[in-house]
C-alpha cells in the first residue's frame, strides 16, 4: 500500500513538472505584447517605446526563452510564482486571498449536489422504470445539457430582476451565495444522480445481495447496509474527479455573478495579459486537480479492498 502511494506521488510530481513547463511555454509562444496592453490599461494612453523597454527590463522579458524558462523552474521550486503585472502583488498572495471565496462557492455547490443527487438516485434505482425514475432521468439529462452560464443568467432574471428575492451579483451573506451555488451545482447534481442510480442498480444485481436476501434479512438492511454502501464507491470516485469540473465551472460562474474569487481574477488576468497570474493560477489549479485525483485513487483502495490486487498487477 505504501509502495503504491509512493509510486503515485512520484508520478504526480513528474506530471506537475511537465505541467509547469507547459504552462510556462504556452504563454511565451503567444503573439502580442503584454507591456503595451498593461501600460495602456494603467495610463489610459499608448505607451512610448522607452516605457515598453523599461517594462521588459523590469520583468526580464528580454532574456532568451530558455533562460526565462530555467528561471521560472527555479522560482516555482522555491515556492515563488512571481508578481502580478497589474497589482504588483505576489501571485501566490493574490491566489490565496481569493481562494476562500471560491472554496465557499464550491463547497456550497457540492453540498447542494450531494443532498439532491444521492437520495433521488437511490429512489430512482429502487423504483426502476416508474414515472419518478423516468422523470428524474430526464431532468438529469436536461441538467447536464444546460449551459451553466445561461442557467445563471436565467436565475438572475427570475429570482433577482423579476421577483427581487436575491441580489443579482456581489459577495456577502448567504443571500449572495444561493444563486451562484445553485448554478454551479446543477450540472454536478445531474451527473451524480445518473451515476448513483446506475451504481445502485448494478449492486442490487450482485450475488451477495441475493445471499443477504435469502438469509432472510430485512429489505431495509439489505438496501442500506449491503446495497447503498457498495454503490457509493464509484460515486465517491466521480465526486473527486468533479473537483476539477467545479474549478472549471467556477471560472465562468464567478464572472457572471461578480464573485471575487480565483476564477474571476484569472479571467480578468487573461483579458489584461497578466502573464504571471495566468501561468501561476493555471499551475495551482492543476496542482489541486492532480492532488484530488491522487486522493481519490488512494481512497478507492481503502473503500474497496478488492481493488488492491488490480493495482499491484497494473
Amino acid at each position, binding site marked *: 500500500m505504501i509502495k503504491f502511494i509512493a509510486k503515485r506521488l512520484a508520478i504526480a510530481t513528474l506530471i506537475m513538472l511537465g505541467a509547469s513547463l*507547459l504552462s510556462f511555454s504556452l504563454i511565451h509562444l503567444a503573439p502580442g505584447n503584454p507591456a503595451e496592453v498593461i501600460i495602456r490599461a494603467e495610463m489610459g494612453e499608448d505607451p512610448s517605446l522607452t516605457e515598453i523597454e523599461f517594462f521588459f527590463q523590469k520583468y526580464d522579458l528580454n532574456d532568451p526563452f530558455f533562460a526565462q524558462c530555467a528561471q521560472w523552474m527555479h522560482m516555482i521550486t522555491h515556492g515563488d510564482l512571481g508578481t502580478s503585472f497589474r497589482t504588483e502583488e505576489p501571485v501566490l498572495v493574490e491566489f490565496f486571498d481569493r481562494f476562500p471565496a471560491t472554496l465557499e462557492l464550491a463547497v456550497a455547490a457540492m453540498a447542494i449536489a450531494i443532498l439532491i443527487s444521492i437520495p433521488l438516485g437511490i429512489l430512482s434505482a429502487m423504483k426502476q422504470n416508474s414515472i419518478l425514475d423516468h422523470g428524474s432521468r430526464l431532468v438529469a439529462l436536461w441538467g447536464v*445539457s444546460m*449551459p451553466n*452560464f445561461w442557467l445563471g443568467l436565467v436565475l438572475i432574471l427570475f429570482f433577482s430582476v423579476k421577483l427581487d428575492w436575491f441580489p443579482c451579483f456581489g459577495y456577502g451573506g448567504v443571500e449572495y451565495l444561493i444563486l451562484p451555488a445553485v448554478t454551479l451545482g446543477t450540472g454536478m447534481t445531474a451527473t451524480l444522480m445518473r451515476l448513483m442510480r446506475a451504481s445502485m442498480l448494478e449492486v442490487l444485481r450482485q450475488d451477495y445481495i441475493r445471499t443477504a436476501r435469502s438469509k432472510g434479512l430485512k429489505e431495509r438492511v439489505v438496501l442500506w447496509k449491503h446495497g447503498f454502501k457498495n454503490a457509493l464507491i464509484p460515486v465517491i470516485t466521480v465526486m473527486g474527479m468533479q473537483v476539477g469540473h467545479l474549478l472549471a465551472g467556477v471560472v*465562468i460562474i464567478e464572472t457572471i455573478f461578480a464573485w471575487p474569487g480565483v476564477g474571476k481574477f484569472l*479571467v480578468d488576468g487573461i*483579458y489584461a495579459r497578466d502573464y504571471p497570474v495566468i501561468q501561476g493560477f*493555471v499551475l495551482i*489549479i492543476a496542482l489541486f486537480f*492532480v492532488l484530488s485525483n491522487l486522493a481519490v485513487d488512494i481512497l478507492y483502495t481503502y473503500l474497496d479492498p478488492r481493488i488492491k490486487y488490480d493495482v499491484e498487477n497494473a
Partner: protein
Amino acid sequence: MREMMSIVQHLKEDKLAVTGAMIILSLTIIVILAPHIAPYDPIKLDLENRLSSPDRNHLMGTDNLGRDVLSRTICGARFSLGMATVVVVIVMLLGIAMGTTAGYFGGVIDGIIMRLVDVLLAFPNIILALVIAGILGPSLTNVMIALAVVWWVGYARIIRGSVLSVKEKEFIEAARAMGCTDSYIAIRHILPNVLSPVIVLATLDMGHIILSIAALSFLGLGAQPPIPEWGTMLNEGRPFMETAPHLMIFPGLMIMVTVLAFNFLGDGLRDALDPRMKEDAIK
C-alpha cells in the same frame, strides 16, 4: 455489417435516441438552408426597431441594434454546430493518429506521447482551453485551435488501449507474415476494429464541445460581433437582460436543445454498443 444492423435496430427502439437523432437531423437541415429560411439578414441593422419584443414581424424580437433575433439564431446554428463538428473531426483524427502510433509502435514513441497526454490531463479541460484561447487572442479559429489542443487526449487514450489489445491477435500476425507494411496494417486491419468506442465518444463530445465553444464565446474569447454565434449572442444580450430578456432566452434554449439531442443520441449509442447494457433494456 451485421453488427451495424443490430445497433440500428437497438437504436430504433430507444425513444430518446430517436428523438435526439430527429432533432440533429432538423438542425442539420437548418444549417444547410440557413440563409434561405432566415426571414431577415442576420447582420442588417434596423435602428428604428431596436429591442422590440417578439411579435408577428419578428417572432423572437429584435436586439439592441434592431437585428432580427430569429434570423440570427437560425444563422447561428451554422457557426455553433459547424465549429463543433470541425473541432470533433480534428480531435478524432489527431487522437486516432496519436493513439494508433503510440499503441502500435510502443517503446519510446509510446512513452513520449503518453507523457504528453498525462501532462495535458493534469489541467481541467476548459481552463486550459480558456487560457490558450485567451493568449492567442479572441477569434473563432483560435477557440477551435484551443479546444482541439486540449481535447484529443481522451481519444488517443482509448485508441491506444484498443490497439494494444488488437495488436496481439492472430490476424495481425498473419498480415505481418504476408509482408504487409506497418502503416498498411495499422490503417487496414487495426483501425476498423477500434472505431466504435470512438464514435460514441465523439457523439457525446459534440454536446460538450458546443457548450465549451458557447462558454468561451460568452466570455468574449470566441466569435466576435457581428457574427451570430449563440454564445456571442448571449454575451451581447446580457446588458439588456431587464428590458429585453428575449435576447438571452432564445440562443440559450437553442444551445440546450442541441446539446440535449446529442446527449440523447450518445446515450443510446453507448447502450447499443455495450452488450451488458442490452440485458438491462430487455429486463
